[in-house]
């Protein structure tokens, strides 16, 4: 038995099970937040955010995330060149961490969301449990991609004007941060109960 079949839903914020009017929208009597049978426009909103993230993924990888100027010459760093830097310096564990967090996770996250959206739109009846798990993992790991943004912030803060070297943040960092934030919100807007509605 599913809550929807009983005309009920659990509040998204506090979990209180309650009857929902035919419109599908109400206010939770316990936490006072809006309650919906299903997240409004879940599929459209998730697509919109996901496509925006995909659009930002390209500039995020092409443009430098930071530029190091030392003794007059400037060297620009993209996400990928950061990975290669660690690899060539024999620091493969760090190269792996950055590669997974900055390249693999955003990519897999966008692929996973695309698959989840398509499977829900095609009303796929199979592998509901696995797809729910995939969604859960997708929602959990996304935040780790922010690590490169923090690296840029710390390096910029530490290496400041007047020193032998200066570090400037690059436009790629903004694009990259948007990818992370957009995919995080996209995952939040996706209502995994839709997987089970077929």
């Amino acid at each position: 038995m599913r809550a929807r079949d009983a005309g009920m839903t659990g509040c998204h914020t506090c979990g209180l099970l309650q009857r929902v009017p035919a419109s599908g929208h109400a206010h939770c009597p316990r936490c006072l937040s809006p309650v919906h049978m299903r997240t409004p426009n879940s599929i459209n909103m998730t697509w919109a955010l996901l496509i925006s993230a995909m659009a930002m993924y390209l500039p995020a990888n092409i443009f430098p995330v930071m530029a190091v100027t030392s003794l007059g010459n400037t060297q620009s760093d993209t996400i990928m060149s950061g990975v290669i830097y660690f690899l060539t310096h024999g620091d493969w564990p760090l190269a792996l961490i950055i590669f997974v967090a900055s390249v693999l996770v955003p990519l897999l996250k966008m692929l996973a969301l695309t698959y989840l959206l398509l499977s829900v739109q095609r009303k796929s009846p199979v592998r509901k449990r696995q797809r729910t798990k995939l969604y859960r993992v997708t929602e959990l790991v996304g935040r780790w991609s922010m690590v490169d943004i923090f690296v840029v912030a710390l390096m910029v803060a530490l290496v400041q004007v007047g020193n032998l070297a200066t570090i400037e943040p690059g436009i790629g960092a903004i694009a990259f941060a948007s990818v992370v934030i957009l995919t995080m919100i996209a995952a939040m807007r996706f209502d995994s109960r839709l997987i089970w509605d077929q």
Partner: protein
Amino acid sequence: MKHPQQNDNTASELMACHECDALQRIPALPPGRVARCRSCGHVLLRNPKGGLDRPLALYTAALILLVLANAFPFLTLDISGREEITTLFGASVGLYRAGMGELAVVVLITSILGPALLIISCLYVLLSVRFNKPLPAVRPALSWVSYLEPWGMLDVFMLGVLVSFVKLAGMATIHIGPSLYAFVALILVGAAATANFEPHILWQRLGIPGKTHHAG
């Protein structure tokens, strides 16, 4: 209506799984037990062993550590005798000065504001429920918590510190400031606090306000 700390079990409740909508009765959980959805395996309800006192203690410690993590130098960079000291807040300031205000806001929210609001909100609600004192806006504060949680990224920030360390190691000497130690402790204490904090139990204790509730 009042619960004078005698019963450590949660109340038996009919629940719908957040992730798959399966309707099921969750029995009263004794301390230390977890209830999972029988259709998708999602954790529906936890009853952490320490009741309300343990998360209260841990969040208090977290608040103190958060202040310490922001009060002293975080890292000091030493390039041939010239020292550059930065605080945690300095990470945002640096980006702002470099003309990237948007990014500065993102870093500020994920490294300071988000965690601070989360810790304060949790403490506020815990104090109110633990001591049966109906404080104003307890419900909105507890609602906040679930929205804030993904945006506090102290652990991710710490990974960023490690990576920067290695990147700068060839260029200069880096000294660890007292705030970095507080920051590491904050991550550990914060993780323990989160593990001992179950919003659902607090919602059960808060109950449904009054008899006449109006939508809006």
